[in-house]
């Protein structure tokens, strides 16, 4: 296969100068943590500046570091979870410029000047977001591992619905998206729930959307 050509099976190169992560901004200064060990033999990338949960942040990490690893291993923002680490489960869903994307398939280097929102920026234990309350009210989880991804995804999804983004289950791609349960399930299909709490998840999102003004 094309990708397996040159460099296939390459060992980590030995010539790289160890380079420690430098992080600053928004009270998120972080020293060496467990995650740094895995990236010690790496090159650096120019500093990247973006907004994280409303606060500016500047980081300089190796080019291969994903947003997910930055959040969890360097910033101790562990609300965003890691499941498959290859795009298939959705537990690492965060919002970048209001659009839901996968933290595991986004490099920190790609975030310059972007706005990132994680579950920590959605609500707090003291002041949960209304959608978080709705998840509690409707039993939208069992173990909770997928929940932050579900919630970030649902927030992005409701905005897409309001914007008229078409979906595959609509009768016609040009049709204004409907608000059926089928539609919601299709639009949330990037978020798996191993516990199978889907009914509660759909109920929670519907309850929140109804209360928030009918966009669902």
């Amino acid at each position, binding site marked *: *296969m*094309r*990708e*397996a*050509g*040159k*460099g*296939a*099976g*390459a*060992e*980590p*190169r030995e010539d*790289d100068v160890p380079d420690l992560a430098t992080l600053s901004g928004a009270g998120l200064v972080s020293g060496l943590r467990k995650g740094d060990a*895995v*990236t010690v*033999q*790496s*090159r650096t*990338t120019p500093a990247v500046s973006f907004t994280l949960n409303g606060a500016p942040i500047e980081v300089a990490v*190796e*080019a*291969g570091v*994903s947003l997910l690893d930055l959040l969890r291993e360097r910033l101790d923002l562990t609300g965003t979870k890691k499941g498959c*680490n*290859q*795009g298939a489960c*959705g537990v690492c*869903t965060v919002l*970048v410029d209001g*659009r*839901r*994307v*996968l933290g*595991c*398939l*986004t*490099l920190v*280097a*790609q975030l*310059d000047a972007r706005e990132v929102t994680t579950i920590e920026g959605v609500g707090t234990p003291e002041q949960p977001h209304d959608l978080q309350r709705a998840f509690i009210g409707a039993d939208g989880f069992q173990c909770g591992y997928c929940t932050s991804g579900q919630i970030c*995804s649902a927030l*992005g*999804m409701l905005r*897409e619905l309001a*914007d008229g*983004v*078409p*979906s*595959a289950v609509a009768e016609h*791609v*040009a049709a204004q998206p409907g608000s059926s349960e089928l539609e919601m*399930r*299709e*639009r949330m*299909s*990037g*978020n798996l729930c191993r516990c199978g709490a889907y009914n509660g998840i759909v109920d929670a999102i519907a309850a929140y959307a109804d209360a928030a003004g009918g966009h669902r």
Partner: protein
Amino acid sequence: MIPASFDYVAPTSVADALAALAEAGDDAKVLAGGQSLLPILRMRLNAPEKVIDLGRIEELKGVSEDGDHVVIGAMTTYADVLASDLVRQHAGLLTDAIAEVADPQIRHRGTVGGALVHADPAGDVGAPALALETEFVITGSGGERTVAAADFFQDLFETAVGEGELLTAIRVPKHTGWGHRYEKFVRVSHQWSIVAVAATVRVDGGTIAEARIGLTNMGSTPLRATAVEQALVGKAATDEAVREACAAAAEGTNPPSDLNGDSDYRRHLATVLARRAVLAAAGA
């Protein structure tokens, strides 16, 4: 699950990207949305010295109109194509297919150019691009060249984009007023196509005047079902006539056998999905 280390550059123009590519030679890899490349790097199927991120090149993004063509920049995300009225109006088959690619999260980062150059035979954009007779604009240090869809897909993960070159845009001939449908067969919602059929037809007074049909995952590249296309011309858009024409959907194909189905099963699927796609496209 950690990629080998690499240098990262993010040029802001095609010219700068080509220069970076020329300098690094075959040690470089181009990064578009990363939705295929990042898993590949992480699994160490590839370990480039340098990754050239096209994400900051504005001239590669967006949908525009150029006479009889809709032009889509290589770095336009699936989500932006999905939201494009121009594409919906003139190349609805692409909208249909892109609505079925992976899931919304991946569609927010994955790009049309990345998908086409990646050229996974189970990918959902190749067959509609082929059926719509898309032209591929490829740019290298020597300038720009345009390649017909029939010559673009060469083999498994192989396209006409050579070393040191970039796919910069696709030009989709307008199929205004044509009906369209992408029939994708999967077991769970966001799976890769086991088989899919892309159909777009022009119906004139209840009769199929023209038909273009692409097949996904029926060989090492996307394929055109030319036998079906020819058989449909002049036929009434009825279940019986369409069923008869679509019996030839697997002619000349070489589908894979895997855990999702053996090649005979896929051949059968192609005929069923072709019938469904054509009937829906014809509004029957």
